[in-house]
C-alpha cells in the first residue's frame, strides 16, 4: 500500500510526518554529545538509600513426632490456584501413605476462604481431633 494512503487511513497527516519543523527540537550547540560520559575523580558523599530491616521475635518449631505409625496426619489443601488445583497432589500423597505406610491415618481437608485467607477454625478442628501432624499444600 502507498505510504501516504496508509497514513491517511490511520488518521495521520502525511504532511505532519514528512516535516514539521516547528516541532523539531535540537540540542543547543554547547550541550555535551549524547552518550558522552563525564568521568571525574571528585569524591562525593552520598546519603545511604538502604533501609535497615528489623528482625521479628524468633519462635521455635513444635517438637517433631517420634514416628508416624499410628499417627493421624492431616493433608490440608490451601486452595492455592483455586478450583481443586491441589486436591490431585494431596490424593496422590494419601494413596502413597495407604500403600507404603498403612499404619498412618491420613485425612484430607480443604481450607475455607481462599488461598490468602486464614482458617483458624480448621486448625482448631485438627487440634481438637488430636491430629498429630499436618502437610500443607500446595502453594506456588
Amino acid at each position, binding site marked *: 500500500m502507498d505510504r501516504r494512503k496508509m497514513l491517511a487511513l490511520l*488518521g495521520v497527516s502525511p504532511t505532519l510526518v514528512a516535516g514539521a519543523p516547528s516541532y523539531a527540537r535540537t540540542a543547543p550547540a554547547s550541550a555535551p554529545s549524547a552518550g558522552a*560520559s563525564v568521568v*571525574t575523580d*571528585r*569524591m*562525593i*558523599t*552520598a*546519603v*545511604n*538509600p*538502604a*533501609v*535497615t*530491616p*528489623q*528482625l*521479628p521475635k*524468633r*519462635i*521455635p*518449631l*513444635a*517438637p*517433631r*513426632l*517420634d*514416628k*508416624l505409625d499410628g499417627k493421624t*496426619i492431616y493433608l490440608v489443601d490451601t*486452595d492455592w*490456584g*483455586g*478450583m481443586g*488445583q491441589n486436591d*490431585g*497432589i494431596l490424593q*496422590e*500423597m494419601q494413596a*502413597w501413605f495407604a500403600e507404603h505406610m498403612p499404619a498412618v491415618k491420613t485425612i484430607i481437608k480443604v*481450607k*475455607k*476462604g*481462599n*488461598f490468602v485467607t*486464614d*482458617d*483458624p477454625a480448621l*486448625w*482448631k478442628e*485438627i487440634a481438637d481431633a488430636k491430629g*498429630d*501432624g*499436618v*502437610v*500443607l*499444600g*500446595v*502453594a*506456588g
Partner: protein
Amino acid sequence: MSLEAGEIEQKYRIPVVAAAGSNVVAFGIGANATYNTGMPIRYVGVPFPFSGQPRSVLKGYIEGKDTVSGKPMMQAIIEGLTQPLTEHERMSGILPEAQPEPRLLAADTEDNLQRLFKERCWTDFNPVIIPTQERVAAMLKGTSHKPDEIVKSGAGTFGTRRPFTVEKVAVLAVMAGAKPEYFPVILALASMVPYQDSTTSIAQMIVVNGPIRKEIDMNSGLGALGPNNDANSVIGRSMTLIHKIIQGYDEGVTGFASLSNPLRYDNLCFAENEEALPQGWEPLHVQMGHKPTDSILTIFTGWNFINSTGWVEQHYAPQMLMRDYMSTLSGMSATLIMDPSVAELLNDVQGFKTKDMLGEWLSQNVEKTAASYWGNSIVSSMLGPLGAQGLEPYASWKKVPGETLIKPFTNPKSIRAVVVGGNTASVWFATDFMPEKGTSIDAWR
C-alpha cells in the same frame, strides 16, 4: 503459607511440613522466615507447574524428588514431621537487630557510586541522581515534616518491619530526579507501601487529583500517559525505587514475578483531567468522598491494559466497544481511562450523565462464558472457594454449563472511569485496575 504453618506450630504445637513451588519455598525459608514469621518452617519443594497437570504427572511428583533437599519427596515429608529440631529451629526470643545501615555511604567518585547503586539494585537500572547531602537537604525543604519522622514501619512485603523516615524518602526522591515541590506527592506514595506483588504480571497505576496537579505542572492532557512530563515521569519512577529499596523487592528473594510487567518502569503515573470532565462527572477523588480542593493520590493495582486502538466510530457507540473489550477482563474490577472527547460522547450523545451510570450499564451488559470466567486463575483462586462454600452468584456459576453467558461485573461500583488526555483522538483504555483508598497529599506538605 508460612503464616498458616506458623500458626499451627505455635498455637497448637503440631508439626507441619509445607509443600510448595520453588518460589514460595525460597521466600518461605529465606526472607519470610528471617524478617516476617521468625519461624524456619520446614518445606518440601514441588516441581513446577503443578496446576492443571494430569494425575500421572502429580503421581510422578510424589514419587520423585523434593526440590529442596533432593531426597525422595515422601521421605522428605516424613523426615520433616519426625526428625528432631535443630538448634536453629529451637531458637527463641529477640535476636540482635540486623546490622544497621550507616546514614552516609563512604565517599567515592560519581562513576563508582553509580556502579554501587546498580550492584545493590538501588535503581531501575537507568542512571540515578546521586543523593548528596546537599541535594537531600534541598528535597527536605519540600515538606514541613521532620527528616527523622518515621513514615511507616511495616513497609516490607507482607508487612515485614522495614521502618523508614522522611529523609529516606527524600533520598529516593533525589535519586528519581524529583524537584522539592513533588516531595509531598512522593511521601504520600511512600506511605502506601507495601505495594502488591505476585508471581503473575501485576502492576500499579498512580492517579493524582486536586490542586497539586497544577501546582507541580503534572500532565493531565496531551500525551499524559507517555514520557512527556517531568512530574508524571519522576513521581512514577519514584514508586519503582520505593518498591525496590524501601519495600525491599528483590527478584528471587522477596519477589517472584515470572514475567513482571513493563508498566512497572513508571507505574502509569498521571493526573486526572478534572477541567475536561463533562458536567455531572465527578473527579475520582470526589467520587471517593474527598473534597474537590483536597489533593489526593490513588494507587491502583491490576494486570490488564487494553488499548481501544482507534477512535470512536459513529456506527458503534463507545460503550459498546468497551463492553466487548471488557469481556476479556476478570470481572473483579475495571477502570476505564478515557480521553475527554470520549467522556463527552458518552455524556452528551449516549446519555451517561455520571460515571456511575456508565458503570451500571457496563455491569449489566458485559458478558462472558462461565468457562472463560473460571478459566482465569485469579478469579478461580479468589472466588472459586467462595462459590464452593455456597456464596451466590459464584455457587450457581460453578454449576452451569461452560458455554453459559454470565455477567461477571457483579458490582457496578467496581467499574470506574478516569478522564485524561488531550482531545486529539477519541481513544481509551480498558483496564482491570482496582484502586486502594486514596491518600492525602496535603498531609505531607
